[in-house]
């Protein structure tokens, strides 16, 4: 991330949103909304003194990066490795921005005068040749599966929360502890939460098995707790992954093949008192078991971003049945979209792990650059053409063209089609009452010959089947 931020040829626009895209391959016009961060990016050096001097003595707002496990102030650095290393002020929480009354001690302490409460939203327009959509994913919302007890029992965590707990720069400094500070003695990891499930998402989110194994290892290593993995199948496809699974098995992590039916705190016996009980059918031995644990980790799956439909229509790309952006071909063109000059990278296209994302993003970057370096773009030859001899100047075609590719030549009194703008949909061809427009490769003659060919009676002596003329 830092490398991208420092690269002379890369302009990084963080805290910004694309609001409009127009144009075509090699010539896109993108409108970007730059949200105000109330800090001048070029002046701030990330010394963080403003955070210290903020009038809020105690941090009282949930830290989004740490999944709300700790608190932050209205002025904050989004996360330790944030690029650029610049603070941001939350306008909904900052006393001055909310009420206009505050000592502004943050601005006072900043000797570079980087804090600017007057900053306004900026609209930026850039001309670009190609676009890479790398909008990522959304973590599955565990509240959609209430029987896993998330939100009901404080010690039911999502995997991302535990991931933050294991991080040395996380809210507990790397200590895996329960919400009341106790060390867990038994931990259950429920796989496939929001994946491979008819009720939520049918696809496999692909990364959960591996991160569950990692968390199992971390929990066992840090706390010595008994760890139970509840799985449907362990899917460890990837270089070195199966070997890691073997290692976890040898470490003594328990694996129970079965989908957890219920998570509750109703104790049936003294050893279940004060614990969370997981009820599960162990399908390997055909017995319904009750496993008491202190901590439950839900291995949440990946979902498309909630605004994926908006993004898809803005960039003119389509989505697959699972909601992720659709590639041009599932095997041969996994990076391109059906819109020329728009590429996909990472989990915006499908769930994938880090090495696969790096490879996918690298492919997207090289395809985008290769297209630009060529200097000219190849356009489809299947475009429409006006035969000026027959054009009656009725201008009907002008009204149906979705790309305003047709202009009217007032001098010659005929319609003209711009080759670069025409995408070859053929709507004008079908519309032209004079028959003056031909859609190359899809001319009336070509289509009629196809109809005739398909419906031709078989030759005498030929066998008539449903395939008709092809026999």
């Amino acid at each position, binding site marked *: 991330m830092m490398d991208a931020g420092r690269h002379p040829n890369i302009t990084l626009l963080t805290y910004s949103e694309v609001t409009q895209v127009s144009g075509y391959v090699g010539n896109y016009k993108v409108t970007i909304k730059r949200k105000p961060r109330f800090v001048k990016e070029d002046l701030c050096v990330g010394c963080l003194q403003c955070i210290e001097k903020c009038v809020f003595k105690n941090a009282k707002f949930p830290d989004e990066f740490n999944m709300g496990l700790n608190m932050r102030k209205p002025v904050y650095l989004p996360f330790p490795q944030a690029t650029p290393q610049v603070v941001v002020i939350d306008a909904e929480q900052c006393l001055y921005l909310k009420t206009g009354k505050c000592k502004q001690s943050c601005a006072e302490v900043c000797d570079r005068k980087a804090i600017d409460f007057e900053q306004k939203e900026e609209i930026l327009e850039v001309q670009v040749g190609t676009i890479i959509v790398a909008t990522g994913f959304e973590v599955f919302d565990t509240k959609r599966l209430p029987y896993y007890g998330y939100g009901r029992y404080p010690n039911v965590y999502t995997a991302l929360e535990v991931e933050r707990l294991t991080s040395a720069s996380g809210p507990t400094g790397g200590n895996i502890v329960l919400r009341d500070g106790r060390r867990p003695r038994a931990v259950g990891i429920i796989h496939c939460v929001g994946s491979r499930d008819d009720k939520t998402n049918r696809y496999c989110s692909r990364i959960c098995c591996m991160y569950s194994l990692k968390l199992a290892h971390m929990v066992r290593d840090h706390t010595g707790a008994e760890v139970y993995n509840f799985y449907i199948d362990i899917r460890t496809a990837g270089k070195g992954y199966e070997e890691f699974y073997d290692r976890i098995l040898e470490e003594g992590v328990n694996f129970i093949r079965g989908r957890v039916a219920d998570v509750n705190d109703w104790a049936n016996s003294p050893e279940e008192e004060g614990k969370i009980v997981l009820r599960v059918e162990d399908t390997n031995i055909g017995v319904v078991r009750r496993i008491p644990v202190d901590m439950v980790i839900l291995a949440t799956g990946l979902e498309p971003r909630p605004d994926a439909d908006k993004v898809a229509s803005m960039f*003119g790309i389509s*989505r697959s049945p699972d909601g992720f952006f659709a590639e041009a071909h599932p095997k041969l063109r996994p990076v391109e979209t059906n819109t020329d000059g728009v590429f996909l990278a990472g989990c915006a296209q499908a769930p994938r792990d880090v090495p696969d994302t790096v490879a996918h993003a690298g492919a997207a970057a090289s395809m985008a650059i290769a297209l630009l370096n060529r200097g000219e773009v190849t356009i489809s030859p299947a475009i429409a053409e006006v035969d000026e001899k027959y054009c009656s100047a009725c201008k009907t075609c002008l009204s149906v063209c*979705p790309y305003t590719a047709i202009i009217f030549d007032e001098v010659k009194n005929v319609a003209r089609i711009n080759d670069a703008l025409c*995408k*070859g*949909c053929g709507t004008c061809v079908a*519309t032209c009452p004079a028959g003056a427009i031909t859609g190359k490769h899809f001319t009336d003659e070509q289509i009629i010959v196809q*109809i005739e060919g*398909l*419906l031709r009676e078989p030759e005498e002596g030929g066998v008539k089947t449903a395939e008709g003329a092809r026999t």
Partner: protein
Amino acid sequence: MNNGKFEPRIIAFLCNWCTYTAADAAGVARMEQPANVDIIRVMCTGRIEPMFILKAFAEGADGVIVSGCHPPGDCHYNNGNFKTFRRMPLVEALLSQFGIDGARFHWGWISGAEAPLWARLTRDFTENVRALGPLDWKRQKASKED
């Protein structure tokens, strides 16, 4: 080889981006589809002239399918499907004036992601047309001209 059983001949005009993709995907996924449906690909359903549909019937088709991208937003060309949306009811009216049963003509929307829907449509439509029997427009026309 069909033992004298009537096999309807169906022409389908599909747009390149949605229904043709769905048909392609249905084939790749080895979904069961009748061989009665022959596909003619166009870039957009907006290209389909009513004349093509009449021509198909005139050349001996027993049924015709027109299918493209779901309105409003699925069209690869922004709004070509709207043109189809307006034209096809006219075609329906025209067909009834020619004495062609409306059930022989289907128009609708199947997105590239709906391969099973395409497979089901071809199966159902073929069965419906089979039940209606041969149209034989070509022969009728010929006998009238005699």
